[in-house]
């Protein structure tokens, strides 16, 4: 891997903006709405009550805005989905319309094209959060009379966490997109794998409890905690990660893993053969792993549901797991082959 200097390219960044402006605008709107706009509204309401001498009625309902300096789950999920959509579209659209053919025939290297995609996503993130944080800082600073339940430092922490987590999500989706050939594939696979650790641990717990293999609640809890720890998107929803671990390390680790994802994405795109565009999976070698993963996950998910009404013996249970697993393996196999033919 070479580390030759890469510069922001005006034409490429402008092109990304043209192609994603709708998603980007929605993202800016949502973040601004839940942060600066909501804070401003609360302040105006407080002022109104203060003028009529009823300020004691005002308890700062920051639930709509920031919840213990973390995002409400719905907001967090929304912003994560937008980030995934942004990255998925940025790559999926180029593949879908064969515009990589156009770009790569231009005097741009693959590295440069991908680099500017990252730059655009991170630029957007930084712009949105820095702008809103600045606005909120000013709003808090010019209203010393109000007893805000959070300080300026908290706002900046919120922004830093959001940028790092959403940046990770964005990088992760681009990484997945370097292996998947369609916008929908990019988005769904990213979503699945981002929530995979918590999903998988939950599945394991459900199955373990279903089969009465484990009755020790402490190990179940620690398993669940590990699952949460590995599920980065939960970090911006009031995760305990920041209380249990030194935040600096968490930030550092997030930043580092984002860098690693960037390098991996560059590596995969450099080896990417554009002729596979449009297939669900771009690299045939990961196909086996992918099918196996789907089969195992769905076996763990579906088998307990199928068996929950009766109490099967271990032998019957194994057969049900196998049947479900094999069926899903065949299903995925069929879908991949069908896409390939179409």
């Amino acid at each position: 891997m070479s580390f030759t200097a890469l510069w922001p390219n005006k034409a490429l960044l402008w092109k990304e903006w043209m192609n994603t402006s709708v998603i980007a605008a929605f993202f800016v709107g949502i973040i601004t709405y839940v942060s600066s706009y909501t804070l401003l509204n609360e302040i105006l309401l407080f002022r109104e009550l203060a003028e009529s001498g009823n300020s004691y009625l005002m308890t700062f309902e920051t639930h709509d805005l920031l919840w213990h300096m973390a995002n409400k789950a719905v907001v967090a999920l929304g912003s994560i989905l937008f980030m995934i959509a942004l990255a998925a579209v940025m790559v999926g659209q180029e593949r879908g319309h064969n515009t990589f053919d156009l770009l790569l025939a231009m005097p741009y290297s693959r590295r440069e094209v991908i680099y500017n995609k990252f730059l655009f996503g991170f630029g957007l993130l930084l712009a949105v959060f820095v702008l809103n944080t600045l606005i909120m800082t000013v709003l808090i600073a010019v209203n010393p009379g109000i007893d805000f339940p959070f300080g300026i430092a908290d706002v900046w922490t919120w922004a830093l966490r959001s940028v790092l987590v959403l940046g990770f999500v964005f990088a992760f989706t681009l990484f997945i997109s370097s292996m998947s050939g369609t916008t929908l594939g990019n988005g769904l696979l990213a979503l699945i794998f981002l929530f995979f650790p918590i999903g998988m641990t939950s599945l394991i717990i459900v199955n373990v409890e279903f089969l009465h293999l484990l009755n020790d609640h402490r190990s179940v809890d620690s398993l669940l905690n590990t699952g949460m720890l590995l599920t980065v998107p939960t970090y911006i929803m009031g995760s305990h990660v920041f209380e249990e671990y030194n935040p600096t390390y968490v930030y550092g680790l997030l930043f580092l893993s984002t860098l690693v994802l960037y390098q991996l994405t560059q590596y995969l795109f450099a080896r990417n053969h554009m002729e596979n565009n449009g297939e669900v999976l771009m690299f045939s070698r990961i196909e086996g792993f992918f099918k196996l993963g789907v089969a195992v996950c769905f076996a763990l998910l579906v088998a307990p549901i199928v068996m929950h009404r009766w109490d099967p013996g271990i032998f019957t249970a194994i057969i049900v797991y196998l049947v479900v697993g094999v069926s899903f393996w065949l299903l995925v196999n069929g879908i991949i082959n069908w896409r390939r033919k179409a």
Partner: protein
Amino acid sequence: MIQIENLNKNYGESQALQDINLRVEQGSIFGLVGPNGAGKTTLIKTIMGVLLPSDGRVLVDGRDVHQDPTVKSRVGYVADYQNYYPGFRVKDMIRLYRQTYPHWSEERFAELSRIFSLPEGQKMAKLSKGMRTQLAVLLNLSLMPAVLVLDEPTSGLDPVLRRLVLNILVGEVAGNGTTIFIATHQLNELERTCDHVGILHEGRVLFDESLEQMKENIRKIQAAFDGELPEEFLKRPEILKVERQGRVYSIVVKEKVDEVKAELLNYKPLLLEDIDLSLEDIFIYRMGGLGYEFHGIVA
């Protein structure tokens, strides 16, 4: 100048391009022909850096296209189908090119815009194939190319536009010394415009020579005799094909045409004349001579 050295391209197990070596000199036009599925588009996309070669390299003016993509700032490319961002308007596409290519010429652009009148406000998704091609020609000539790579540039154009585009290309070579690499199955276009022609067949370039050489080296002679021509004469290695109808022999000769003709005169022909061979015939005979079955070069 374009140099292609030992270029190979594999798609999984199958070899799409095999050991391709070509050299297109500056200011010349190279024509690539071949039936559909021969690998023309694969070759062109590999030259342009869209596809990565499995082995070998492509040099433009001595610089490796895949290692050093900036060399493409003076390479124009008209693909077989123009892929544009569907949400873009014509003027957005123009902007993207203008910002991308450092040698972009507004003057040239204005000049060509008068020839191809394209609606600047039109969305890409609504442009016809012909209009996309025209836009591609317009954009890729305005970037002041030193090298132009064209994949069936005249397909989807009406005859008037087709002629116009070819005229512009020819003028480009004459005026700016541009090097052109063109894939086509329009043989008559090839003949007028190309210095050299290569045939791509099953991933290999079968031969690469000037059309004049090709035409001079292969002739069809029609001769009538009272008697029969001796077998050993007809088995000469230069004779590719013999057809006989009554007294009239049609003989396709490759190389040493004059020698064969002189010898034919010894057999006192009642009639001896050269028959014009179309380029297609020439290809067919040449390929046949190499043991290739040749179909559908003119698809």
